[in-house]
């Protein structure tokens, strides 16, 4: 089962190769549901002449991404609020009425667990006044949310959402992903600086420090995957995780010692990269009002929000791709469920994890945050890199060696983990509860 | 039920596992350790019975299971197990006696907080001992032999905080190691000349005719056959382990260990290992070697009995009696009847274990009073102990017919009588018979009869069931083992079917019965009729022949003799080695060093004055040049960059214009 990609045209844009479903070798899983998205696209664009077709395909992909993730964003905000509510023992939004416009007279207001809340929020954001502070750097103030959203969206392009479902198949897709992701830092800084508000600026500085600090473990954590898969292409990485050992253990990277460690590091760094709690220092409301968002309102504010969720989705999607086998089913007999459903399930699971973490962890202090990165995550990620080398070196030999690499590699990562963790917690004074029992 | 030889290793493995369990249980886990040890021994006993059944099915065959230990040269170094009747009998004996003594120990040691370790060591010992028994390789036997020694060392020194115990342990280990060196050399020689250490290996073993004939044919110094020398070297090991003259000195001291240890190791099993070893390698032994063995055994038997007469410590008496009995066994081997030796070994194991355990029971009851002069009158409060002890005593003394000791001793005396070389050992043995009966009677009389002479013995009470039940079982066995020889010499047939038991021993039997009667009678006359009044009152025998008794009481001054000779020599050698290091070699090194230092001094003087001056001047001029160049450094970064830019332009122009030309 291999994806064969044929260059669509002889143009100089060979690097940008849009996957053309017609050129695909028919796979064993050509069930209707599996192929539905691609068939839908071809139904729309298939009639166009060839030079235009790939542009149309691209546009289709963009529209699809915006549609899917826009909706996902809307309901994720709701889910987040609901989940936070449940964790904090309160109901969460549950009162937004479902519009029943033509039949309002008969039905009255229907409250469906607050499912209409996102739309209400959207309307509210659109109708709010857009305030720009007096001394603000107007251009940057305007550009910041736009740039942020643009960069966040760009990252979604290379993630394979399902079999043959990748908008842009790049040779260096992983690199592209993180290159585009790195640019979001800039937007955050722009927002903070342009607001001409000392809290915003502080937030921008914090954001910068934080993003730089966590860029490193984030990048280091996926290098092992690239080493083992032998490719920077997301599609190839998913391919590398195909199959099952003994018929029931998937070859996902997360199920190896280095992969597990890499996954955890990746997720922690991703939390920080997407400014999520407990790393939400740039918008720490108890210290900085709302950080770089302080001077934003209305739809610009909504843009920031949207970008945050897009970023979260993108990083989670990348984690799924790199470590959790992408769109692959966990067990052979579950393959009848379409690939994008698997991807979506894994994505949602990770995002729910994000929310759970947000609900349960207290926020870090800035020095703790940087120390955690430089003194814990980075060394651990580096050790994990070496660990992967050991793993790869030991994989060639006898079955005994192949078995032995499990405890060896586990030890290589667990021992530093324990030790670094101890060193890490030893650097803090034991917490004293002065007023609590 | 039968146990094939391929699985015979299970028997030593069981106690080894028990030892492992004992080692890893926490300090308080006496119950676990003792249960594991006893369980292993009982299970081992059943397996041994299976092994015995296997062996008895083919009594003449030596079933072996050999295996490779590690690669050596083109081949491998092989070890192996052997299962033949002699090994099987030993297995049954060791496991049976061992199990009983283990059970006894639970009672005896229950106050000791390190009892768990005790069971661990006991199990280790049992494992090693069983290994000795079934080893089919002299090397494997040696390995187990040394481990037995280690266990003995650990157990003698079990109460290591007593300096005497620690010293006794060390003495035992070192003394036996002296013998072991002989064994090692013998083993090396054997290995070197035959290329194998396996006893039986389908015709290639060292005990099999080819190798033995080969060894007998080779002559070494003094016209001795090679096998004689090797046999005697191996005998050295047996001398050390079995407490034969002149290396017997450690055995009485070993009584510092807990009494069950004395019973198991220093009476029943380990000390008999030497005898077993000689029986095992009997095919190697030439008449020349046997002569030495016979005389050594006879001397030991007599000497042990003599010394025992003058001892006062209950365990010491038994210890010297053990020495004496081991001498008997060696005598039997020496005069060519290894079957009699093994028979005596088996019976002795039972009744001597019985005696030691009985002594342990007495000691336990009398709050660790071991001096027989301070005991007395225990017949009343300790009926079971008394009865069983009496059975053991009669077996040891050789009271006729009913007791196993009589038969085995009879077999030995018979064999000694039939020895063509000399009758001297026979007479020495007879003397020892009288003495044995005498000192055992003395022991009985002083301990159990008369009246209690100290507070401790007044308040003595019968020991718990865990101690008395083994006593009873052993007592039954001490009697029942007669069946091995009587009414028919069954053991003889099994072990050595070729040799036929000679008839006509009736006269000899009568003689020995008379001698035993004399011994017991004289003992009773001196000690039994008029019992001691106070613990401090004089010994009636010592009053009559004070010099002899004092000499014997001091164990014939062997320790003093060794201290004056061997120890002195050893210490002198050590001092010499140390002084050689300190004042000869080290001094030489120091002298060389001083010469070197002097040469260095001369060198330094010439260097400083002559060579260093010139460099200073050169350095000075270099520094001035550097100062001059540093002015070009203006500190204006823009200026530097500008200069670079202009320079670049000029260079390009030069190249381009130059290129045109």
């Amino acid at each position, binding site marked *: 089962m291999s994806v064969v990609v044929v260059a669509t045209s002889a143009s100089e844009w060979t690097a940008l190769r849009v996957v053309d479903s017609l050129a695909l070798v028919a796979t064993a899983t050509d069930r209707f549901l599996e192929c539905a998205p691609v068939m839908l696209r071809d139904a729309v664009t298939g009639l166009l002449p060839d030079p235009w077709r790939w542009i149309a395909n691209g546009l289709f992909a963009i529209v699809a991404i915006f549609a899917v993730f826009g909706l996902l964003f809307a309901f994720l905000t709701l889910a987040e609020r609901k989940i936070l509510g449940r964790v904090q023992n309160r109901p969460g939004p549950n009162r937004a009425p479902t519009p029943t416009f033509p039949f309002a007279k008969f039905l009255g207001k229907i409250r469906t667990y607050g499912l209409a809340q996102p739309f209400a929020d959207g309307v509210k954001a659109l109708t709010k006044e857009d305030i720009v502070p007096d001394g603000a750097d107007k251009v940057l103030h305007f550009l910041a949310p736009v740039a942020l959203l643009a960069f966040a969206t760009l990252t979604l392009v290379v993630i394979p959402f399902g079999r043959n479902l990748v908008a842009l198949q790049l040779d260096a897709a992983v690199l592209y992903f993180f290159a585009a992701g790195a640019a979001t830092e800039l937007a955050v800084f722009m927002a903070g600086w342009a607001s001409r508000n000392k809290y915003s600026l502080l937030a921008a500085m914090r954001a910068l420090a934080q993003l730089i600090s966590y860029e490193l473990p984030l990048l280091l954590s996926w290098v092992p995957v690239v080493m083992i898969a032998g490719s920077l292409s997301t599609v190839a990485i998913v391919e590398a995780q195909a199959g099952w050992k003994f018929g029931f253990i998937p070859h996902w990277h997360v199920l190896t010692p280095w992969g597990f460690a890499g996954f955890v590091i990746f997720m922690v760094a991703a939390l920080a990269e997407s400014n999520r709690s407990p790393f939400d220092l740039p918008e720490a409301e108890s210290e900085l009002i709302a950080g770089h968002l302080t001077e934003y309102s209305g739809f610009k504010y909504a843009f920031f929000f949207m970008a945050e969720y897009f970023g979260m989705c993108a990083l989670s999607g990348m984690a799924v791709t790199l470590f959790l086998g992408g769109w692959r089913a966990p067990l052979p007999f579950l393959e009848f469920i379409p690939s994008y459903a698997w991807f979506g399930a894994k994505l949602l699971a990770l995002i729910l994890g994000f929310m759970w973490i947000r609900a349960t962890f207290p926020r870090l202090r800035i020095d703790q945050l940087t120390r955690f990165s430089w003194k814990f995550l980075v060394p651990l990620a580096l050790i994990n890199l070496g660990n992967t080398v050991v793993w790869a070196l030991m994989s060639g030999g006898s079955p005994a060696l192949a078995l032995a690499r499990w405890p060896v590699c586990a030890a290589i990562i667990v021992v530093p983990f324990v030790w670094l963790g101890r060193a890490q917690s030893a650097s803090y004074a034991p917490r004293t509860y002065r007023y609590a029992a | 039920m039968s146990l094939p030889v391929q699985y015979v290793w299970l028997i030593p493995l069981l106690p080894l596992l028990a030892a492992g369990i004992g080692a890893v249980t926490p300090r308080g886990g006496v119950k676990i350790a003792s249960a594991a040890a006893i369980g292993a021994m009982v299970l081992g006993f059943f397996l041994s019975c299976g092994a015995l059944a296997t062996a008895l099915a083919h009594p003449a065959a030596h079933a072996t299971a050999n295996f490779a230990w590690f690669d050596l040269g083109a081949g491998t170094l092989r070890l192996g197990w052997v299962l033949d009747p002699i090994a099987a009998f030993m297995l049954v004996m060791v496991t049976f006696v061992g199990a009983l003594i283990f059970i006894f120990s639970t009672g005896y040691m229950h106050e000791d907080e390190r009892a768990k370790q005790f069971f661990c060591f006991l199990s280790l010992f049992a494992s090693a001992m069983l290994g000795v028994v079934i080893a089919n390789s002299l090397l494997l036997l040696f390995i187990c032999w040394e481990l037995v020694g280690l266990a003995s060392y650990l157990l003698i020194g079990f109460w290591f905080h007593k300096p005497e115990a620690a010293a006794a342990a060390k003495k035992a280990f070192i003394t036996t190691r002296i013998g072991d060196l002989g064994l090692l050399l013998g083993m090396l020689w054997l290995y070197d000349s035959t290329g194998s250490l396996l006893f039986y290996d389908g015709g290639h073993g060292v005990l099999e005719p080819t190798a033995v004939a080969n060894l007998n044919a080779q002559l070494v110094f003094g016209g001795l056959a090679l096998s004689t020398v090797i046999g005697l070297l191996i005998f050295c090991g047996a001398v050390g382990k079995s407490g034969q003259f002149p290396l017997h000195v450690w055995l009485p001291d070993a009584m510092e260990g807990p009494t069950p240890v004395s019973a198991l190791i220093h009476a029943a099993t380990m000390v008999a290992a030497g005898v077993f070893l000689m029986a095992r390698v009997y095919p190697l032994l030439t008449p020349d070697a046997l002569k030495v063995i016979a005389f050594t055994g006879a001397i030991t038997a007599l000497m042990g009995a003599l010394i025992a007469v003058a001892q006062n410590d209950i365990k010491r008496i038994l210890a010297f009696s053990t020495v004496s009995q081991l001498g008997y066994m060696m005598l039997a081997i020496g005069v060519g009847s290894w079957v009699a030796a093994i028979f005596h070994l088996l019976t002795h194991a039972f009744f001597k274990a019985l005696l030691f355990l009985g002594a342990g029971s007495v000691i336990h009851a009398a709050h660790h009073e071991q001096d027989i002069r301070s005991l007395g009158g225990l017949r009343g409060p300790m009926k079971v102990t008394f009865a069983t002890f009496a059975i053991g005593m009669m077996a040891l003394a050789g009271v006729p017919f009913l007791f196993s000791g009589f038969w085995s001793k009879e077999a030995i005396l018979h064999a000694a009588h039939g020895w063509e070389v000399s009758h001297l050992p026979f007479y020495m043995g007879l003397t020892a018979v009288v003495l044995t009966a005498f000192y055992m009677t003395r022991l009985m009389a002083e301990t159990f009869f008369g009246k209690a002479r100290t507070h401790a013995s007044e308040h003595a009470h019968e020991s718990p069931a865990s101690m008395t039940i083994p006593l009873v079982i052993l007592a039954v066995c001490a009697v029942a083992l007669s069946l091995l020889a009587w009414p028919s010499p069954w053991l003889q047939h099994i072990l050595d079917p070729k040799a036929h038991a000679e008839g006509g021993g009736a006269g000899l039997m009568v003689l020995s019965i008379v001698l035993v009667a004399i011994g017991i009678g004289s003992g009773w006359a001196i000690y039994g009729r008029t019992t001691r009044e106070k613990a401090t009152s004089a010994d009636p025998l010592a009053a009559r022949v004070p010099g002899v008794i004092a000499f014997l009481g001091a164990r014939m001054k062997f320790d003093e003799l060794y201290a004056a000779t061997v120890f002195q020599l050893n210490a002198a050698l050590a001092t010499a080695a140390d002084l050689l290091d300190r004042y000869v070699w080290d001094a030489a090194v120091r002298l060389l060093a001083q010469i070197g230092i002097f040469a260095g001094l001369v060198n330094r003087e010439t260097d400083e004055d002559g060579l260093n001056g010139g460099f200073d001047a050169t350095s000075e001029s270099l520094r001035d040049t550097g100062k001059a160049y540093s002015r*070009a*450094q*203006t*500190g*204006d*970064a*823009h200026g530097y960059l500008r200069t670079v830019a202009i320079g670049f332009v000029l260079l390009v122009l030069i190249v381009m214009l130059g290129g045109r030309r």
Partner: protein
Amino acid sequence: MSLSPLQLCLLFSSALFCVGLVGALSRSNTILVLLGVELMLNAANLNFIAFWRFSPSPSPATGVMFVIFSIAVAAAEAAVGLALVIAIYRHQKNIRLQEANRLKG
């Protein structure tokens, strides 16, 4: 005369280089000087890519390789340079380059 694409690229890089040079020469703010230098470096990198792109047999990606190494070195240079700027700032409370001339001979 018509310019070949390669020449166009070279003109592009020369122009960028000069922009960087002028910036570096004219500004007194050390950060801007550094940025100018960075720009010059990038302009140089452009040439590598351009020559690689238009070389007759571009199969060994030597030009790309050069650029990758160059980028790595430039990153190192930027880090150290800006650290120096901060050190200068700490020392003389401003970052005017012409004032940082204490080490003159």
